[in-house]
């Protein structure tokens, strides 16, 4: 039984600050967004997603955006926030205001949808383009590297965990190459390298699928993918590794 159930009052706290959210509102068929501004009260721990929830539940219930886990694991809530590709659920608003102030800018948070995905409306996108080139049959589990060397219960072979990549698409949206030509893009290529690492038997088959101009040779090494990745996948590193694997297989 929860200790908090005994208190019949819903916890409400005073705001410690406010921020102006300037949000790109788009509808299908009209590509140029209309900008709308909302003043949102903040607590110290308020993240951009909390602010969007506040706007939708109290001011404007037509605002559309994707969200699910609220802790950086599902990958649905990627957006462009003050020009940076980021997850709205782990981007603290007070930190944004602080950065703005240091740069001499206004206490405003500008929010736009992720580019390169299919826009539904406002900040909501259909991420289907992200998944187009993922390797078929690639698993989502890997061996856990945490507390390495610890004893494992006899019921299981090893401790496992989900892949770091949460398929949020930030790397794809931030990649300068994706915007100018057909490219398999960082997320899918990183998944190829991960899969080869876990299943070396599939190396020849999978390397064949990325050994092309739209595959690993399409990368111009801008490194934006590794910079924006919220979970430390470093896709650029995987692309370089795939290139190395291909060169090595040619020499063999």
């Amino acid at each position, binding site marked *: 039984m929860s200790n908090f*159930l005994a208190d019949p009052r819903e916890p409400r706290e005073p705001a410690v600050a406010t921020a102006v959210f300037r949000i790109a509102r788009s509808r299908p068929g009209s590509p140029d967004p209309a900008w709308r501004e909302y003043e949102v009260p903040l607590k110290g721990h308020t993240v951009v997603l909390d602010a969007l929830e506040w706007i939708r539940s109290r001011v404007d219930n037509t605002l559309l955006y994707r969200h*699910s886990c609220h802790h950086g694991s599902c990958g649905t809530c990627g957006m462009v926030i003050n020009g940076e590709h980021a997850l709205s659920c*782990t981007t603290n608003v007070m930190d944004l205001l602080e950065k703005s102030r240091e740069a001499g800018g206004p206490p405003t948070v500008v929010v736009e949808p992720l580019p390169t995905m299919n826009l*539904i409306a406002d900040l909501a996108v259909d991420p289907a383009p992200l998944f187009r080139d993922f390797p078929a049959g690639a698993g*989502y589990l890997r061996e856990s590297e945490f507390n390495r060397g610890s004893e494992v219960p006899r019921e299981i072979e090893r401790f496992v965990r989900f892949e770091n990549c949460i398929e949020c698409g930030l790397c794809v949206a931030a990649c300068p190459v994706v915007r100018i030509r057909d490219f398999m893009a960082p997320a899918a290529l990183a998944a190829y390298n991960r899969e080869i690492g876990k299943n070396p038997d599939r190396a020849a088959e999978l390397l064949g699928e990325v050994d092309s101009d739209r595959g690993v040779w399409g990368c111009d090494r801008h490194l934006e993918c590794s910079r924006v990745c919220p979970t430390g996948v470093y896709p650029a590193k995987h692309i370089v590794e795939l290139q190395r694997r291909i060169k090595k297989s040619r020499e063999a």
Partner: protein
Amino acid sequence: MKSSHGHVLVIGGGGTGAAIIHDLLLQGFSATLVERGELTSGTTGRHHGQLHSGARYAAGDREIARECIQEVEILRRIAPESLEMNYGLFLALTPEDLAFAPDFLDACREATIPVREIPLDQAFRMEPNVNRQARMAVLVPDGTIDAWRLPLQFFATARAGGAAIRTFTEVMEIESAAGSVTGVRVREQATGREYRIAADMVVSAAGAWAGTVAQRAGIHIPVTPAPGTMVAVKKRLNNMVISHLHPAGDGDIIVPQRGLSIVGSTQWLAEDPDSIEVPSAQIEYLVRRASEMIPAFRETPFHAAWAACRPLAGASSNVEDGRKLSRDFIAIDHGRSDNLKGFISVIGGKATVLRAMGEKTVDLVCEHFGVRRECTTAVTPLLPHRAYYNTVPAGRSA
């Protein structure tokens, strides 16, 4: 596709709706699911992710615990890639905990959960970061669910089977004629366009929003949102789920996931499930509770705090008439209690037993249509989560 027994419309894209629409398709129905926002944007996705062996519930309710362990075994077969199946440790920390332990172990065994006490030094070798003052350790088959990708596997499989899944589509009105449901009027949120979807039956699986949905049929169901807070830190401190061995309370479970450790939960009562805010005091409280089990939790950088709304069904005649499909999962047949045939609301349940909730709900659907029931979801492997986006969507509006 098999010939359809009828068209069923499911409201709500959470775990329950996911399991229901998957089961409906396997059973030979045609089905459409509508969700106001993104899939699992209500309660399901914000789940802390514990795959419950049932040990947490056994002392309070053997039946729920037994269902949990059965469903753990089933999910390990049909959706292994959405589970970190690393088992769990219950730790007794105080003399009171030790006194409770025999009851805990008996209850787990009665619920058919394979538990075993392990030596403390072995527990510390498995989980070096746990509190070394622990007095007893019990191993249970707990694990971690990917709260987005497990439901997505159900949706992917349903969609490949021909289900229409329409997100950002809100039900405005549940329509009826002569006391029977005829369909729903929905609004496509992106365009504001309203249109009708004809249906032979409507199943509301809207969880904490079930009251709002029922209102759109002119029916009152008292559902109180009961949110709970969770806190994640930026390092995975444990591979196994770590639980405090005591009668269930606040902040007594640390679920590891990817590179994070997550402590949950609390519970309070709210008015509106859409305007829940995380109380700052609960963040500090949860970190303190977590640190009793894993002392390093307190020193680990904060990652996120969030809240999710469980639905609590209150007292009313239709809820009283509702059929308890399990102890905490009820179905209200509005044909019996509110004179609206072909409309049912399902409320409650747990993430771990989502498949079973789907099975029980579709049992009722089959009863309504007079269809012979052959549930196969326990033995049907689900498609990978990415198939949701790689499959050509059926029935998707342009």
